[in-house]
């Protein structure tokens, strides 16, 4: 028989919600930044593409400096890499390794877990955008337009890609998510107006590609940042539809185990 030491004398209770969410968001961000493959996807690839395609005339990006065309596309790519690809892969493996299951038995409510994940995605995106903006300025970027529209596009793009990423992570096996998320990343990188202008594609293909979330995001960012356009309603509308579809389907089909 052990004597009582009082160390484990029951005194249950959940921590205050803001503390739980902050702790969870911090941990999720640390896990992401510690993961080499994730960093490759979210930091190295976008930066390399920006530098390479600005410096070397590989793709005809139309009139003006190529960095002015590329920077908005690369910002869209950064959002996709974190909110969609990175989040899908990380969440898929968290599901596979029972992390989501175990957290489900903790005092942290599920909505708070999702809030923390969103915070972690946003923090990562801010870091990406700061880095890419500095690099773009170094390459001679001269952006225009209203920053409010830019933020609106980035936020709605994040929501749309998060919904699609979570849908994938919550329904497919972790390995399938890993493969599919990378494949989709690659396809959308090429066919979503990130570094290759959509005008290069045949008309019929173009009108389909324009409806992709990555095309709407890169096109909207380009309209504002390169051409100083006003509120990009059409692109925001496309992103809003993807957001509703993606988050709606994720909420319905996501499996925690």
């Amino acid at each position, binding site marked *: *028989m*052990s*004597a*009582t*030491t*009082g*160390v*484990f*004398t*029951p*005194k*249950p*209770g*959940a*921590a*205050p919600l803001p*503390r*739980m969410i902050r*702790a*969870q968001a911090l*941990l999720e961000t*640390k*896990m992401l930044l*510690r*993961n080499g493959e994730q960093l490759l996807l979210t930091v190295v690839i976008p930066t390399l593409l920006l530098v390479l395609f600005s410096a070397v005339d590989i793709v005809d990006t139309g009139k003006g400096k190529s960095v002015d065309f590329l920077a908005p596309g690369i910002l869209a790519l950064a959002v996709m890499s974190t909110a969609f690809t990175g989040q899908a892969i990380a969440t898929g*493996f*968290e599901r596979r*390794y*029972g*992390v989501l*299951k*175990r957290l*489900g*038995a*903790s*005092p*942290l*409510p599920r909505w708070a877990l999702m809030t923390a994940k969103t915070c972690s995605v946003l923090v990562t995106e801010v870091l990406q955008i700061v880095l890419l903006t500095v690099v773009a300025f170094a390459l001679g970027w001269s952006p225009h337009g209203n920053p409010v529209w830019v933020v609106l596009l980035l936020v709605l793009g994040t929501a749309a890609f998060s919904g699609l990423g979570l849908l994938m992570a919550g329904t497919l096996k972790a390995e399938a998510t890993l493969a599919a998320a990378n494949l989709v990343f690659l396809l959308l990188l090429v066919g979503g107006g990130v570094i290759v202008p959509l005008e290069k594609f045949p008309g019929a293909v173009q009108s389909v590609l324009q409806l992709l979330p990555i095309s709407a995001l890169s096109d909207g960012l380009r309209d504002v940042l390169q051409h100083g356009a006003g509120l990009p309603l059409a692109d925001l509308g496309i992103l809003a539809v993807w957001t509703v579809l993606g988050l709606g389907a994720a909420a319905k089909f996501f499996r925690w*185990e």
Partner: protein
Amino acid sequence: MRSTSPGDAPRTHGREPAVEVTGLVKRYGPKTAVNGLDLTVARGGITAVLGPNGAGKTTTVETCEGYRRADAGTVRVLGLDPVADAAALRPRIGVMLQSGGVYAGARAEEMLRHTASLHAHPVDVDLLIERLGLDSCGRTSYRRLSGGQQQRLALAMAVVGRPELVFLDEPTAGLDPQARHATWDLVRELRADGVSVVLTTHFMDEAEQLADDVAIIDGGRVIAQGSPETLCKGGAENTLRFTGRPGLDLASLLKALPPHCAAVELTSGAYRVTGTIDPQLLATVTSWCAQNGVMPDRIAVERHTLEDVFLELTGKELRA
């Protein structure tokens, strides 16, 4: 002892059982995992849930933890419905899954501190780390920890929130003897501090060593429940074993023994006598051996163990 300050969340004290399961049915497609299971777990003790693979142990425990919805029957944990009252129940229970539950890239201490930060009055993390020998894990990420270290981290995560009730699913699977004893000591200390413990296990000695109450599950039902002593006494007879020359004439031995005794040659030269083994019976067997010129090597009287009871109740054949 620590005092509970008046500002803490209200707690229901010991009135209702820790766990009360009535007529639980759980199916996965065409397969019935739990089939009308009844189980009551009293507060403040250690209850071991024993059963062969596929008996329904994990399903039962996971239904109590709120992971599964019962197809029929009722489940109450600390008086609450694990699904409907999940938000109120979760802070009060501690859960150790059979495996996983930790970010692949997280370090042991980091994960334990994080789990502690989700609770209002956690146990001192440094103390837990030292007690469970997790200080040697250093900066190693979870995926590179040994199986035993992963198990101990999961145990620490289950108790760090100072819960009233903990569910431990096979807490010592894959542990070396030292780690196993460290785990047992911790579980005993939980009981001494007033925590109720429900653990599933394959190890009979673990149940015998730790449990105040044992529930044996088979085919999705509880087929026996009681203290280890009661279970071992109930209906069970003792055993006398010895080895000698193969092919002894057991019929003549049986004539010398009192009625209701049985004697068999288990394998060549290994004999077993079952019945009420008292000094008189022992003398009868040895004198019969003397008459037959047999040296009864390795003669031993065996108390009925929990393992015997378990095998008797659940059958000896291997299950898929």
